[in-house]
């Protein structure tokens, strides 16, 4: 029986491999590297010795059960955890070779370079225009013409321009949920990031809006490195190039990266049994 199973596994591995041989993505170098990253909230150790490389200009999905530290991990990538009292980080997170946790690292610049989109769309209670212009203006862009240009270009990149060009001066809160989320993406794009972090960006959106955002991500990865946390495994399977599976062994223990690999492999033939149990729904 084992023999049969082994032969079947070998066959499906050969199938996955045969496809990969034809369309193997060039191994991109990492944009960000997590090196022995550990994080605690006060006494509670949330992440332990995370080793991960985020490939440049690809979409990396982080999947795993609730409460395993996915969002905490994401927030380490642009030091959003800094604002949480009692939060301590050890180890390194390197962006293009520089450790972002070095004392003296420009955190403001970091949060522009590594932008974030949140689960619940959170446009500013301002006009559509102001939402996008806010960041560049803060960064020193004063010329009206230039600002107009940045706003238009960012909204175009976020696939939102056609829908809002006639109501730029209208309130952002009047847009639909999906439009608001794309506005938040435009807001991130306006300050010229290199990395975009997305924390469950579609979980508050309906299926049609979700698809539009996913289509947008597929376009954006030509220029930006993206990391998306999602509890929707199908989304991770559809959208990402690489997938990291994070989980905790037992309640109260810190999260760890169980497996990381090309999404093709993870969803057709994961290496770790725990990954397979999770993605096939045998978890818990």
């Amino acid at each position, binding site marked *: 029986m084992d023999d049969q199973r082994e032969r079947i596994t070998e066959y*499906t591995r*050969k*199938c*996955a*491999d*045969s*496809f990969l041989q*034809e369309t193997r993505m060039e191994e991109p170098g990492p944009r960000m590297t997590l090196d022995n990253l550990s994080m605690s909230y006060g006494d509670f150790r949330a992440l332990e010795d995370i080793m991960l490389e985020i490939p440049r200009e690809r979409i990396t999905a982080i999947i795993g059960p609730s409460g395993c530290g996915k969002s905490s991990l994401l927030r380490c990538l642009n030091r959003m955890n800094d604002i949480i009292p009692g939060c301590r980080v050890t180890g390194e997170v390197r962006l293009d070779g520089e450790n972002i946790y070095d004392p003296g690292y420009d955190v403001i610049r970091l949060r522009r370079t590594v932008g974030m989109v949140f689960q619940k769309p959170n446009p500013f209670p301002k006009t559509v225009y102001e939402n996008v212009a806010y960041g560049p203006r803060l960064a020193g862009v004063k010329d009206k013409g230039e600002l107009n240009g940045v706003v238009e270009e960012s909204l175009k990149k976020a696939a939102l321009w056609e829908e809002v060009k006639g109501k730029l001066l209208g309130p952002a809160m009047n847009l639909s949920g999906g439009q608001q989320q794309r506005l938040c993406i435009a807001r991130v794009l306006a300050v010229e990031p290199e990395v975009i972090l997305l924390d469950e960006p579609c979980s508050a959106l309906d299926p049609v809006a979700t*698809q539009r955002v*996913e*289509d947008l*991500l*597929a*376009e954006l990865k030509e220029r930006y490195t993206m990391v998306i946390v999602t509890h929707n495994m*199908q989304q991770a*399977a*559809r*959208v990402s190039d690489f997938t990291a599976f994070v989980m905790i062994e037992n309640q109260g223990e810190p999260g760890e990266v169980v497996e990381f690999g090309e*999404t*093709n492999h993870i*969803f*057709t033939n994961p290496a770790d049994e725990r990954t397979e149990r999770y993605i096939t729904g045998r978890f818990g």
Partner: protein
Amino acid sequence: MKARKDFHQQLDELYLELLRMANATMEVLERTRAAFRDVDMEAAQSIIEGDDEIDGYVTRIDGEGIKLLARQAPVAIDLRTIVIIMRISQELERAADNCVNISKAMENMQGYALSPWIRENMDEMFRWAIKIIVGAVNAFKERDPDMAEELTRMDDTVDRINREFLTTYDRESEDETELVVRVVMTARFLERVADHGVNIGKEVRYMVTGEFAD
């Protein structure tokens, strides 16, 4: 619509790959027919050696099909299409395997003269088996669910000729046992080829209508 378009593009590519495989299989059938008619041992050998090419199609189609199922979680017509494409590729592979079997059976036929009766009836059987496969592939290409019935009718002819080989020829032939065995085996292999064609027709019907044949 980039992400979903990529999926449908990949689905189209899978569909085309199956048609390419079907072309390759039909070509092998024609070559086997000619090889048998002429008792051409070289042609038979080349058919045996070329089987890896057909197997390669199955590996690629399975690989791509599984990947699409895993990553896109398709439903409805997309799901049926992918599953049926993978099934049809196996039917075609087995049809091609039977051509290899026929070619191998020819190994010990060298030196024998095929009687006009054998040559005519086997060629007739080849003709019908190929017609069934071509009909089945066309049904897939045109997404025609109704071809399945016609293929079953054509299969009756193949079965009839096969029975004649099994009974009339086997019983009454004065040919040497070695040749008789090879000829009867060949008829059997062709009957299998026709069966695979009929199966493809049924699978196409399921793909299009979502209903299994009775």
